């Protein structure tokens, strides 16, 4: 019997295992994770887990019972420490090793730890244990200082206000979400946070943190000092590819793969999720994407490729990421970067719902930002797949705006 070994049981690894079995794969499926927790979903960690509206058992991706029913061998508390791709063997930290016919690298990433994050009371948000510790400290009251205004930082700031805390958010960039949104939209997100009572210090850096839990002092580059009971650092993540360092496989901020998500130079090693840097034909370069939907789509793709290796279709996803901040459901489709949106339906500064559209040089939709507007979201997501004519799309949405305003 053949064996597929999946290292990493976050959403990418779990969905690969499920898609293999669901797609008729009859070999052995071994799913391994370094955590001892049954696999769980990560998006709620910066939101519902912190407010208590979700509990750990409500966010499980795969219970031991479900794993058993699907004949998935779930091995927890094992850390992969090495790979020999020629011998097809993965080594683990307890001294054991396991062979495979197909290997799926799904080790994800870990939150970057800033140099000053040495005292207690400074939190990262990546694991269930991280979220539980942060929840405990937030329950003790503010002020909360959040460093980093990317998706994780902005969501934690929003959650802090929901809990009634005094919240300050700090970022070196001029606006939140500046890596994902053009400045005109990012400015609207800044206004959203300010209107919700978050003190936003943009264009600011942190030079040091002193004190301990409950009584921290944050010092900014310009000498300003801020008091904080709790500090959260959301300054990005790094791919967990260190265990592959001696494998001979190509690493470059992630495991480098071809357009079929196969590690370069191999025919039997695949990567999915945050750790995968694959060659994306649409963008013409290698990319690494840290979003939930990409991990799920890549998992389905790789499972297909393992079941039917003759399938020649390359992996060409359309990026999709959502973020819940204050009363906004922000949804970003495709590429919404650049100097400004091409067209905006509704007013981001005044309306409770709007859509910003981005055209490429051929006048086709290349990206969209949709806030609180389900119909526009569906229309834009379909349009990205169909490469719909720009005029049809905007006319459609204009009609919808008119109807909404009527």
């Amino acid at each position, binding site marked *: 019997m053949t064996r597929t070994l999946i290292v990493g049981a976050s959403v990418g690894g779990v969905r690969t295992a499920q898609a293999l079995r669901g*797609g008729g794969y009859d070999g052995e499926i071994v799913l391994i994770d370094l955590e001892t927790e049954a696999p769980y979903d990560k998006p709620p960690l910066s939101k519902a887990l912190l407010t208590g509206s979700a509990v750990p058992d409500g966010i499980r991706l795969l219970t031991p019972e479900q794993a058993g029913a699907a004949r998935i061998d779930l091995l927890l508390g094992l850390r992969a420490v090495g790979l020999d791709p020629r011998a097809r063997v993965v080594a683990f930290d307890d001294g054991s090793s396991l062979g495979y016919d197909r290997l799926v690298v799904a080790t994800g990433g870990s939150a970057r730890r800033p140099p000053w994050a040495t005292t207690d009371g400074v939190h990262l948000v990546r694991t269930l244990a991280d979220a539980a510790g942060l929840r405990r400290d937030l329950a003790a009251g503010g002020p909360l200082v959040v460093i980093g205004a990317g998706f994780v930082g902005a969501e934690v700031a929003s959650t802090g206000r929901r809990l009634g805390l005094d919240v300050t958010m700090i970022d070196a960039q001029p606006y939140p979400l500046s890596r994902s949104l053009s400045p005109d939209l990012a400015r609207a997100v800044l206004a959203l946070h300010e209107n919700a009572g978050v003190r936003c210090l943009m264009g600011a850096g942190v030079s040091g943190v002193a004190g301990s839990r409950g009584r921290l002092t944050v010092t900014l580059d310009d000498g300003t000092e801020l008091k904080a009971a709790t500090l959260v650092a959301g300054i990005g993540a790094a791919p967990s590819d260190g265990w592959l360092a001696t494998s001979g496989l190509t690493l470059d901020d992630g495991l480098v793969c071809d357009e079929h998500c196969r590690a370069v130079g191999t025919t039997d090693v695949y990567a999915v999720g945050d750790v995968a840097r694959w060659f994306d034909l649409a963008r013409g370069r290698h990319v690494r994407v840290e979003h939930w939907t990409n991990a799920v789509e890549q998992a389905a793709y790789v499972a297909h490729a393992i079941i039917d290796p003759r399938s020649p279709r390359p992996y060409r996803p359309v990026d999709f990421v959502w973020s819940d901040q204050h009363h906004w459901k922000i949804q970003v489709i495709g590429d919404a970067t650049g100097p400004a949106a091409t067209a905006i339906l509704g007013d981001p500064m005044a309306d409770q719902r709007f859509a910003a559209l981005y055209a490429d040089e051929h006048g086709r939709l290349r990206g969209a930002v949709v806030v609180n507007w389900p119909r526009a979201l569906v229309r834009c997501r379909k349009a990205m797949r169909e490469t719909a004519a720009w005029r049809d799309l905007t006319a459609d949405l204009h009609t919808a705006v008119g109807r909404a305003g009527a």
Partner: protein
Amino acid sequence: MAAVEADLEACQGYANCVVGADRYFDIDDDGVVVLLRIEVADEDRRRVEEAVRSCPVSALKVTDA
């Protein structure tokens, strides 16, 4: 024959299911999933199950009738 079920309370309108299988799923103006058909044809099963697994809030499932 297999059937698809939706938890309308859980649905958050992400539309991943629509992208995955638009003959089976749509989203209404309030952002809640609409099942366009209930019974899942055998030849569609894998595609529909993938769409179900792509739901960020696990609001969908396929059951064997």
